[in-house]
């Protein structure tokens, strides 16, 4: 499989440091890339992987260190310089203008045409030729908004190839893809490698490192923790290097019999989105006490609306919602929460926390008007303070104190504040959406174990997650959500991620 010719080094970053106003994101990092090679950069969230690559791409200027490209020292003052030297980058968050066409996005900044006027005809032709040459089929006139994430990524890759990239950086390319799309991407990557493109792939997924790259650099807290040949390294070694301590890779889930009537039921629920289309289209499901029901699906198939309608945050067009046999369809959010329904929202910054408010204020948010947190019309600040300190201890929240703004905590600790607030209310039903998005392995491990603890306390849990791995490791039952309907039910032990992925993308078989 290896087509590394001689071991000519095409790119070298030497002793790179990058200081942001408040963070030292990279410290003395050195990496080498050989011709026709694929290397990966492995590290937890916030390890500085994207920063390092953005330095290479000319978006950030390094605070120290140098870049050597084809035996020549280079200094990039903007991505324009990097592009001219044959670098291309597909960013973690796509750099595509939603309301422009595929062609416009690909040619942006390097448009063909004379006198400042775009020659759309030859642009379209060039794009079509390029996509044919690399077998990256996309419709040149399609508007980006209307494309799936997998296709959007194709456009991003074409964008780099259009600029004749010889070194391609892919920042977490698989984060948003379904298992099938990941396979396709890997094929594309190999094809590109065979045509002589060298690649740097950022990831925090261990299997991918093994599947795709020749060598791997491990980054932790901005520093390079090591370089390994992927052939001779185990997943456990990589995980330990990445986190800096021993980690448990898979959560231990006791198999258990779920009996009893369901605690939460949705019957034929229809919800419209702002465009007036049915985002939930006659959805029914049930959750029994002591089980975790995982909702698997590609983003945008009704996840947001499902979470909102459960908590009474959007209008129910038709259908009914029952909790413990009682119809709660018409109840307000507050009334639902008071019936021991708890909720960990998907977007912790916008809905889970009020970032500028302190940890203790956030800790009682929503219950701050109830005893024992009020005395008459005043907040019982001492009670709230003590309660928060206890929670900080119980949930292992790393913070210098409870009176600092929640926004100052790391993502993992912010999520723990939400868990502390929601879990300590002793709920009977728990809605958990995207509980570990953007968190590092250590925090994920902790949050998963807490969710399983709730399950063992006989709480009924509905888990909505875009991470298939998470769905598999936590759920007792998996429901596949596609275009606002549950299209399939699985038991995790009796299926594979491929099969679930197939239904997630609208596949059907009889």
């Amino acid at each position: 499989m290896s087509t590394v010719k001689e071991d000519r080094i095409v790119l070298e970053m030497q002793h790179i440091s990058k200081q942001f106003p408040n963070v030292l994101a990279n410290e003395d990092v050195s990496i080498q890339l050989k011709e026709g090679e694929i290397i990966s950069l492995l590290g937890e969230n916030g390890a500085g992987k994207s920063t390092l690559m953005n330095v290479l791409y000319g978006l950030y200027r390094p605070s120290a260190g140098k870049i050597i490209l084809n035996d020549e020292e280079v200094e990039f003052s903007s991505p324009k310089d990097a592009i001219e030297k044959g670098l291309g980058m597909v960013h973690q968050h796509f750099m595509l203008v939603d309301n422009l066409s595929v062609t416009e996005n690909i040619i942006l900044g390097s448009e063909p045409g004379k006198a400042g006027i775009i020659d759309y005809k030859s642009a379209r032709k060039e794009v079509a030729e390029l996509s044919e040459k690399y077998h990256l089929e996309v419709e040149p006139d399609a508007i980006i908004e209307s494309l799936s994430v997998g296709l959007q990524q194709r456009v991003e890759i074409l964008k780099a190839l259009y600029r004749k990239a010889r070194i391609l950086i892919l920042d977490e390319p698989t984060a948003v893809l379904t298992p099938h799309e990941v396979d396709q991407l890997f094929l594309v990557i190999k094809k590109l490698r065979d045509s002589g493109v060298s690649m740097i792939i950022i990831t925090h997924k261990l299997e991918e490192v093994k599947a795709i790259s020749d060598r791997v650099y491990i980054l932790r807290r901005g520093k390079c923790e090591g370089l390994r040949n992927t052939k001779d390294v185990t997943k456990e070694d990589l995980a330990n290097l990445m986190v800096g301590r021993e980690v448990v890779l898979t959560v231990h889930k006791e198999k258990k019999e779920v009996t009893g009537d369901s605690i939460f039921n949705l019957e034929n629920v229809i919800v419209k989105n702002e465009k007036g289309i049915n985002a939930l289209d006659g959805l029914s499901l049930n959750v029994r006490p002591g089980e975790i029901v995982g909702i698997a699906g590609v983003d945008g198939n009704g996840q947001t609306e499902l979470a909102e309608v459960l908590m009474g945050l959007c209008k129910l067009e038709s259908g009914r919602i029952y909790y413990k046999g009682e119809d709660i369809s018409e109840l307000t959010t507050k009334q639902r929460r008071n019936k021991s329904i708890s909720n960990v929202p998907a977007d912790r910054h916008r809905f889970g926390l009020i970032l500028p408010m302190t940890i203790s204020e956030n800790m009682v948010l929503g219950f701050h008007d109830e005893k024992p947190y009020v005395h008459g019309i005043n907040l019982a600040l001492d009670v709230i303070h003590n309660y928060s300190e206890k929670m900080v201890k119980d949930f292992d929240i790393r913070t210098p104190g409870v009176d600092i703004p929640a926004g100052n905590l790391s993502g993992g600790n912010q999520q723990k504040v939400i868990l502390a607030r929601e879990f300590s209310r002793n709920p009977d039903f728990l809605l958990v959406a995207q509980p570990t998005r953007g968190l590092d392995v250590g925090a994920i491990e902790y949050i998963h174990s807490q969710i399983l603890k709730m399950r063992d306390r006989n709480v009924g849990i509905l888990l909505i997650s875009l991470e298939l791995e998470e769905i598999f490791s936590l759920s007792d039952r998996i429901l596949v959500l596609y275009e606002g309907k549950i299209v399939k039910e699985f038991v995790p032990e009796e299926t594979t991620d491929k099969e679930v992925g197939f239904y997630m993308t609208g596949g059907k078989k009889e």
Partner: protein
Amino acid sequence: MEAFFAIFNTDLLVATIRLSTPITLAAVGATICEKSGIVNIAMEGMMIMGAFFAVIIAYYTGNPWLGLVGGVAAGGIFSLVHAVATVTFHLDHVVSGAVLNILSFGIVRYLMVLFFGHPGTTDPIPVGLGGYQFAIPGLSKIPVLGPMFFNQTPIIYMSFILIVGALFFLKKTKVGLHLRAAGEHPLALETIGVSVYKMRYLGVVISGLFSGLAGAYLSIENAVSFTEGMSNGRGFIALAAMISGGWTALGSFAAALFFGFADAFQIRMQIFKVLPIPAEIFIIFPYIATVIAVAGLVKKSRPPRADGIDFMIEREDG
């Protein structure tokens, strides 16, 4: 019936064009500005600067054409303040715009006293551009459309050309595409090597030039002197036209025509007194039309996605 034809005739449409021209110019300029991602509520202030300096230059040189250049330049230079504040210093766009509007009143009053010894109205310029009305042979003979579009004064003709130019710029040119990208997804533009800051400066300054021309129209084409308050909220009506026009050049033009029509109509209702109600009531008509248009259309239109959102590559908060 007679009263009906006294109001609804070709004159009404000709007046519509005349009254809508400054709104059109300011609104189309603002559209380009907001497409680059900078919110602009300072058209009123830029228009005032344009109107005033057009008169100053025309007055001292005796040449209204130089006055026109001066007015346009004044709008452009004044708009640079907005660009520097919002793009370079990352100030809130609405705050900066509000400051510019207030600043323009102060600057103009100060300079009036300095140059003419009193606030209020300046001395008249020797000749205004209104005197350069010319009919395009042939075309101006077409019924209705002829008088509307082909027998007008210079800045009105320029506004027609500029609308077409703006459309072409946004749709067909490289820079136009870059400018639109800056307002939709600035980082996407920056990562392919085009400076977002440059595009946003360009957007703001284009809007300044257009508003400056709108101001010059008011003072040296539609009149021959500058009067404080002569812009009379047209900058804000241009804002409304841009919004109800859905942040598109053509939409802004259509909305501006509608507001111009409302104004022309209300003037006629006052003069001809066809309805048995006090004529003064009609003064409010264009403003109510504005409110209704904005309230009715604003929900359907979508501003550029990154409009009003600051762009900074290396943030303080991480």
